[in-house]
């Protein structure tokens, strides 16, 4: 027994050592930051081009030593970003200062008290001249909760060597795609995830419907447009022009397929443009763009807006400085760089006329037009649940039964709004 005692004692020492060092680390960090300038942590998705890192560095320099911004990269998948953030925010983690928020999180984070409302003094500055849908996405209950930084919306991409003028409505698009014969001519997102919800909401808004009523607390899903949209989704998915793997296709699968040169049409975000330029120059040479097709001739299409807003953690140690830093990050200079370097569409409307931005986005006019009339995904604190309810009910699209599923959808969304039941 005796010879066991010594390693055991050593092990104990080691464990104690590790534990105390782990406990000590943040403390020493704090002491340093109190003496010098505070370090503000910006939690945002890992942006590959380095545009965000550059923005953080620039704002730290501009602050002249009052604060230093550090970037804390999150996963690129929005669901995983949220999963990591909400656990820490619910536990009132003070180590997060600025949050790079997907436009759909505003209501949830604000209602839970995880982010601070934007100070009235600078609210106007961070929303001025910005796309109104982007500003609306950062508002909840008549207050601004975040600074709109980047934006996003889907366009219709097509092959100009095969199609002279892009189809304006969905039925024309399907008909046209079917003339090419091969499956996969039309690329879109059909996996059971947020992308399917976006597809449904965009179609529904184009048909004049909405998921929630105006108060945001009840189900709308008006019968006529919902059934019309569900029939269209079924028609798209069972068309011979649809991809065989539609039920598992996300944005990236659609992009990769388009880059092979086989497909003629694709609905997707603008990142596909620079990507095909790099990966498939031959395809890119014939790649053209247009606004999303609409449902009928009377109304133009309305697309769900995406993008990134910057909010401040309610438990942050230096909220005042964090607001200042977030305002700097979302400023014009950084939006230009995010657009040029990272290919992220700006929220400042005037930048769509900027020659540098237009060089990166030849489709700037179509994109601005789309964004001006963009629609918001339902603004409810349980958006995550509502989205799950939609994507689960409508997947796979080819098995949709328009009338029955319109009823199932209403029921599922109602349950989600009451946070009842499993999803």
């Amino acid at each position, binding site marked *: 027994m005796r010879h066991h005692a010594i390693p055991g004692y050593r092990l104990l020492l080691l464990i104690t050592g590790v534990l105390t060092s782990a406990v000590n680390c943040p403390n020493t960090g704090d002491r340093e930051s109190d003496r010098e300038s505070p370090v503000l942590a910006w939690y945002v998705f890992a942006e590959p081009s380095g545009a965000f890192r550059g923005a953080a560095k620039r704002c730290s320099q501009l602050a002249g030593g009052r604060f230093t911004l550090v970037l804390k990269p999150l996963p690129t998948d929005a*669901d995983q970003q*949220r*999963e990591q953030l*909400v*656990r820490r925010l*619910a536990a009132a983690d003070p180590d997060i200062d600025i949050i790079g928020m997907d436009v759909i999180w505003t209501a*949830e984070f604000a*209602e*839970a*008290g995880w982010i601070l409302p934007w100070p009235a003094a600078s609210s106007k500055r961070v929303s001025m001249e910005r796309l109104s849908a982007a500003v609306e996405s950062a508002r909840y209950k008549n207050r601004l909760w975040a600074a709109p930084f980047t934006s996003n919306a889907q366009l219709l991409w097509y092959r100009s060597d095969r199609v002279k003028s892009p189809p304006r409505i969905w039925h024309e698009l399907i008909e046209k795609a079917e003339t090419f014969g091969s499956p996969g001519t039309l690329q879109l997102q059909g*996996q*059971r995830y947020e992308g399917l919800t976006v597809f449904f909401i965009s179609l529904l808004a184009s048909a004049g419907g909405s998921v929630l009523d105006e108060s945001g607390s009840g189900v709308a899903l008006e019968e006529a447009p919902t059934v019309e949209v569900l029939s269209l989704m079924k028609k798209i998915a069972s068309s011979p022009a649809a991809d065989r*793997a539609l*039920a*598992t296709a996300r944005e990236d699968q659609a992009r990769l397929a388009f880059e092979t040169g086989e497909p003629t049409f694709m609905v997707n975000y603008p990142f596909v443009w620079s990507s095909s330029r790099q990966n498939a120059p031959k395809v890119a040479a014939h790649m053209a763009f247009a606004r999303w097709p609409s449902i009928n001739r009377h109304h133009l299409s309305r697309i769900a807006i995406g993008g990134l807003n910057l909010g401040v953690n309610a438990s942050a140690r230096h909220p005042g400085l964090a607001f200042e830093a977030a305002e700097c990050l979302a400023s014009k200079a950084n939006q230009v760089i995010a657009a040029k370097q990272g290919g992220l569409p700006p929220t400042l409307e005037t930048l769509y006329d900027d020659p540098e931005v237009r060089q990166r986005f030849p489709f700037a006019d179509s994109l601005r037009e789309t964004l001006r009339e963009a629609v918001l995904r339902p603004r409810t*604190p*349980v958006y*995550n*649940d509502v989205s*799950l309810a939609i994507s689960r009910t409508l997947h796979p699209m080819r098995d949709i039964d328009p009338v029955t599923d319109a009823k199932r959808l209403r029921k599922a969304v109602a349950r989600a709004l009451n*946070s*009842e*039941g*499993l*999803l």
Partner: protein
Amino acid sequence: MNPGGRDERRLGWLLCAPAVVAMLVVTAYPILYAIWLSLFRYDLRFPDHREFIGLANYASVLTSEVWWQALVNTLIITAGSVVFELVFGIALALLMHLTTVGRRIVRTAVLVPYATITVVAALAWKFAFDPTTGFINGLLGLENAWLTERWSAFFVIIFTEIWKTTPFMALLLLAGLTLIPEDLVRAARVDGASTWQRFWRIILPLMKPTVLVALLFRTLDAFRIFDTVYVQTRGAQDTETVSIVGYNTLIVRLNLGLGSAVSVLIFCGVLLIAFLFIKGFGASLHEQREDRP
């Protein structure tokens, strides 16, 4: 009982007390707290709207198609993996038991998959089955996107589970094998029993208790499967297991009440499995004790 014995008993209890307290704190408290939480409508996003709702969360879970579908999926994975693990486990245990040359190398080689972290194993097989990065399609001359369809996804998940935990099964069964008296097997051989008869009539019946323990352990583990499914499909293609449902409700939706109800139901499932096994297993133990005077 004499006074000295009583004192010793008390000392015994006192000496045990710290361990018992530690056990209660780390296991009983969370379990009871989960049961308590499951009786509330409690969502971390609306901390102020917490209210007592009795068994409504359970009703909500048990009437949901999601739960029953997940339960069926879990049982498919459990049955599929445990059956094959048992067969391969016995084969490997015999191999480890009978090898005379390079025994250590054989035993080490067999145990390598078990030493691999589950997430790493799941990712490795995910890449192996991937149509672009993987070698499986090339090996079999197929062009399958394995994880995009329900049954092939189940196959990959079950295959990973079998690869990963068969060594554990083999190790437990090896312990059972070493307990079988050599003389008995030799006597059977002298009496003219063939290898097959010796295995089927002597070795296997004597290993029954070990087999049941091994099966119980693996069934309980397999029923709670999470990491392999999370890494490989995240529950897509209808491969969601009960643990994934619990995770989605608790961690993704932050619905503590409903999520705790799911956790408690999983716990009940585990208890039920343990109970059924111990009933069957207890009888067989009993038989054996009666056999031996």
